[in-house]
């Protein structure tokens, strides 16, 4: 008669629904959530990896190009819409795997209308390019990443003379 449905926005409470109804994406979370209401991390990572591969092949791609490629290939059984791919591309930008830029209609952007948002992969195969993001000056020393830096004073309990992170860093 009734079934339990997961509400991703309020997982603590139980929600029930008549069996003949299907819960909306507001309750289920949509394509990115599994039946238990948890984020489907593995699926998301697979989609991200596929999108990144396509962009690397094309060098520069728009959202529509990526969407079209996946529609025609039929790689994913899940019904992924344009906004899903937009979210994935946004996530790739935040991962620093691709750049979101506006086409200037020149060079490698020649095929894309000027002003159109497109995505360009970072060329990590280029000679001298680092596989990982470069570690900055602050991040390469203990104080730069210390969770106690605000309590650190020259003569305090936490100080450069007594710091255990410094001790470890200077172990030769």
């Amino acid at each position, binding site marked *: 008669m009734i079934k339990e449905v997961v509400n991703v926005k309020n997982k603590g409470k139980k929600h029930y629904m008549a069996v003949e109804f299907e819960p909306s994406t507001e309750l289920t979370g949509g394509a990115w959530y599994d039946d238990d209401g948890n984020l489907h991390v593995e699926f998301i990572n697979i989609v991200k990896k596929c999108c990144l591969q396509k962009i690397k092949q094309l060098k520069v791609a728009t959202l529509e190009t990526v969407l079209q490629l996946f529609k025609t290939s039929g790689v994913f059984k899940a019904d992924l819409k344009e906004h899903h791919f937009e979210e994935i591309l946004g*996530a790739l930008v*935040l991962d620093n795997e691709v750049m979101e830029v506006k086409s200037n209609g020149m060079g490698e952007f020649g095929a894309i209308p000027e002003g159109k948002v497109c995505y360009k992969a970072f060329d990590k195969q280029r000679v001298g390019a680092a596989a990982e993001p470069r570690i*900055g000056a602050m991040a390469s020393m203990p*104080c730069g990443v210390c969770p106690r830096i605000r309590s650190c004073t020259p003569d305090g309990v936490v100080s450069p003379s007594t710091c255990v992170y410094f001790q470890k860093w200077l172990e*030769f």
Partner: protein
Amino acid sequence: MVSQHGILYAVHLITNQFGNLVAKVCECLLRNGALTLQAIVRRTELSPAKVRNCLLVLIQHNCAQAFILEESVSGEDAGEPGKALTQYIALFVNILHRVRFSKFMDVVSKELGGSCGELFRGLLEHGRLTVKQIVDRAGANAKESTNTVQEDLGKLVMAHYVECCPAPEPLVPPPDADTKKRAKSSKVMVEPLTLEQRVMAVAMPSAMRRFSFVPNADQVADDQQNVNQPPSKDVGEKRKLHDLESDTALEEEVECNWRANFEELLRRLRHKTCVDTIKVRFDDAAATVLSAMLEASRAEEDKVKTANSVPLSLNTIYEEVVKNEKNHSMTFDHVRTCLEELSCPPTFVKTDDESYSIDFTKITEAAQSEEIESIVLKRFGETAYKIFRLLFRAGCLMETDKIADRIFAEKKETSKTLFKMWQDGYLLMEKLVVGGTTTGPSYGGSSYLLWKVNKRLLRETILDEMFHAALNLNLRLAHEIDQNKEVLNLPPDKREGPDKQKFDRLRNVRLLIHSSLMKLDDAIMLFHDF
């Protein structure tokens, strides 16, 4: 306004180089702004003679500047009403430059050679010198002839690496009324000059005077003095006055002090940072083209924080590229391709009607973002890294759930990370209460937490942390040396076994800390000076 750790770091540098007394006076100025001699004496509880000597040392080494405010003086230091009193201000930027001497030496030696470098070293060590002092020093050290030394000094002045020192006690007018009017009518916000900037703007000699060096001026002065002496007694007052004026002018010419021009050196280091940033993001060819553009437009740059370089044509850029023997193999088309790449978004090079100009602001911001993101990633983790990049790019308030959705993270983890970043000053937080009665959200309303990156505040926070880190590195090094001073005092042939291990460890510690300090100083320049 200098941050707390900026002051501590600057005071530490002065203590190391000039001792506790000078550092005490310097700290007093850094914490209290411009002060008269009496005010410094009162605050430091040192004798006037000691304070005066400390100020002389600071001024000699360009870490302080004296000046007189044109506005009438009132308050605790007023002697006679309206009497202008000399005040002193610490030059925080110049204090920071003291750790960069090796970088400045590198720039000068590479461009002008070893003998110019050696002369320049003397100016850095002594702060400011007259021509006679420069010549005497070179003669004592390397047995250089006067002509050679003057030639080298001429080269340094021509390249703007050395300048005539500022006026000892300039009269500083009140903030320009015109500037205020311009600021009101202009749509662009004009940041008012700090007192330090106003003082230095007035103290600096004119551009012509600042970089005008006449070799053998002392010889000319001697000759003139010989000519002027006996006849002036017979001619009378008019001649005496003329002699006095010419003597004074020659005195000024002869006694002009010369010092390193930090502005030009900072500009070169900024260029170097831009080239390095481009090299990492693109390749060596793009860096070569950018370097050529910087060289070709250098003469037109009038300040360190220029937003854009002057526009250059493709032909000009190509000619500059191939001037360097190493780049003879670069073709015209290759240079054009590099420029097109650099002009692609993000636009580090702007194009306008067949001309190209460098967007320094974009390159600097890209380098700053990279540095901040690196800290966030290492300190708070990958989730924080994505959150930060999202909020930095958005530039507006965003609600917790929306952030979690955009970065594909669990809401609990997102919330925890946001709070950690907020506690360390990397994010701003605002609470939004929607609905409910006047008695609170519990009566039917909801509260949401909104998050944002305030770029200006964040840069200040990061800069203060950098000063703190630089101070800590120095203190740790001092601690390590202190802990191992017995080993350091041992003669090399007596260092065996555990002593030798300690000595080797200390050597490695010194190398690591020094190289970290240099790298950190590059980052400090990126956030503070560029």
